[in-house]
């Protein structure tokens, strides 16, 4: 069985070839990190996997299913959740409402039932709430449950966004720069959480990250990109010492 496989992914924006023949494979239960200088195409890979972009060539296979042409809103139901580099939370809603939205992929109530708020809707809402509360406990978000996102500091928002992704109960979690904008202490917390997500919840993590300390601490495999092309793949140490990677970051 193929858990996740990207094969020959390519995409053009006008004349710019943002990705060119990127292939990689994830094993279940891995933390797989993509690194690369700015503009290397890391987030573009995420946008391809979450189907916000259409690739010009290549295929994406997830759990033996070709998801290359699946509509974006079907991705969450397939078990893939993501966070965003610049935080895309629902700003004028509370943390709780944001997390409950993470349960949208598991929505089973129909509109007419909701209009009348039938007992079935109430029961389902309570089920969603139970699931959300588990995530709240997991990520220590209890004090912020009823705060509006707009009133929260950046570090907490970052965690809330991860919590929202976890509420979809994914099998594959895409984290786009989980440590950006966090201080050293918060980054350490993030490292522990990523490890817990993998070992305790058994979720495979695909991550884009710049902080090499975090990358080395949590990654099983690392893929380095430059100008949309993969230049090295291996464990964190191998990739960091790869001559092509050194050249991409330092020039020469």
């Amino acid at each position, binding site marked *: 069985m193929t858990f996740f496989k990207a094969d020959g992914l390519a995409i053009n924006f006008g004349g710019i070839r943002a990705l060119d023949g990127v292939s990689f494979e994830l094993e279940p239960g891995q933390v797989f990190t993509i690194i690369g200088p700015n503009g290397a195409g890391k987030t573009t890979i995420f946008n391809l996997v*979450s189907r*916000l972009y259409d690739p010009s060539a290549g295929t994406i296979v997830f759990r033996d299913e070709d998801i290359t042409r699946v*509509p*974006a*809103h*079907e*991705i*969450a*139901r397939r078990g893939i*959740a*993501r966070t*965003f580099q*610049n*935080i*895309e*939370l*629902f*700003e*004028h*809603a509370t943390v*709780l*409402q944001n997390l*409950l*939205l*993470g*349960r*949208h*992929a598991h*929505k089973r*109530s129909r*509109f007419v039932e*909701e*209009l*009348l*708020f039938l007992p079935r*809707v*109430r029961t389902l*809402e*309570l089920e*969603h*709430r*139970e699931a959300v*509360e588990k995530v709240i406990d997991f990520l220590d978000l209890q004090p912020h449950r009823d705060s509006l*996102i*707009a009133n929260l500091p*950046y570090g907490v928002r970052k965690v809330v966004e991860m919590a*929202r992704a976890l509420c*979809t109960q994914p099998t594959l979690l895409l984290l786009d720069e989980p440590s950006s904008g966090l201080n050293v202490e918060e980054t350490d917390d993030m490292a522990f959480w990523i490890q817990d997500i993998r070992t305790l919840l058994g979720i495979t993590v695909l991550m884009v990250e710049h902080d090499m300390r975090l990358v080395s601490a949590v990654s099983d495999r690392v893929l380095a990109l430059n100008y949309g092309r993969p230049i090295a793949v291996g464990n964190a140490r191998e990739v960091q010492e790869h001559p092509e990677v050194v050249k991409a970051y330092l020039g020469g």
Partner: protein
Amino acid sequence: MRFVFKTSYVQDLGLFRDEVQRNWYVALLGGLLVLPLLVPTYLVDVSLVLIYGLAGLSLMVLAGYTGLVSLGHAAFLGIGAYAHVYFTQNLGLPWVVAVGLAAATTAVAGVLVGLPALRMTGVYLTIATLAFALIIQEIFVQWERVTGGLKGKAVDRPVIFGVPFSTDVAFYFLCVAVLMGGLWLTTNVLRSPTGRAWVAIRDSEIAAQSLGVNLAAYKTLAFAYSAALMGIAGALFAHKVGFLAPDIFSVLLSIQFLLMVVVGGLGSLHGAIFGAVFVAMLPVAISQARDSLPVWFGAAAGVFGKGAGDAVYLGVERLVKQPGLEPGIFGLILVLFILFEPLGIYGRWLKLRIFFSTFPLYKRATFKRQKAYMRSERLR
């Protein structure tokens, strides 16, 4: 300051925050029930407030919760009104069935507007709805067999299950009941996954999509639901005005509806109702002021002698009898609200409430907005 002590998840699912809030709403309902005894002369105006409340609810769902600003809602009101009158008077259907069908007809119209609107966002969508409203108004003029065209169409008083609602009081209670029903249904949807999905679309389409919200389906649903509510409001509106003519459902009315939700406070059902009170009562207040202001000012100036009193009386009368005063005041108030109170009357109300609940410790800085550079805080 009162804090709600939560011991069960069920508490977060209730219609009201706690018993205290529920009791206030019961008191409000009691107030509405005795209102006909207090202000018998203004009951027709109050009925209009209630109908506008329903219309505000409709636009609030679309603009305040889903983030799709429409300038075509007067057209939906018109479709609801004409459809209802056609079903009751031309086809002779029972009132309740006719209202249901009118709501369904407007919902279909809402879907038809919603479909092309899916590809548009922001101001382009607003312009598309505006175009739709103009087309619909033209159809009201041309389709004489159904609408009566420019000659207009007289509307009978409602008769529900054989009971005639011919008096103002009876019609007022009908409006109260329908508005309460509309509020109940809307609150239910908003506390369910669908309502959350609408809010998600408003705040971040991209995040909503990757959480599994089908943008096309939920935007269309928002349009359909909003239009259906507007259709029901239209049915009541038809009875209220008693005579339908195409020029009632003009762009100006759409703008008034938009004014209603903005002045009331976007993103809250309270706002829709506050806005309705404001928009429906302001013309009444202005016409009152037209009659009484010159007298008051004249009497005040009269202490300096009869000549001064008469001069001031005539001067003030000339000023308040100026044509175009009403839209001018509307516009001025809208501008002032956008400048000073983006959360509208509801925002003012929140501040007032917190002032009294924290008295004497209220500090203005509670609501002071920091200069902020994050995406979220630029939104409003």
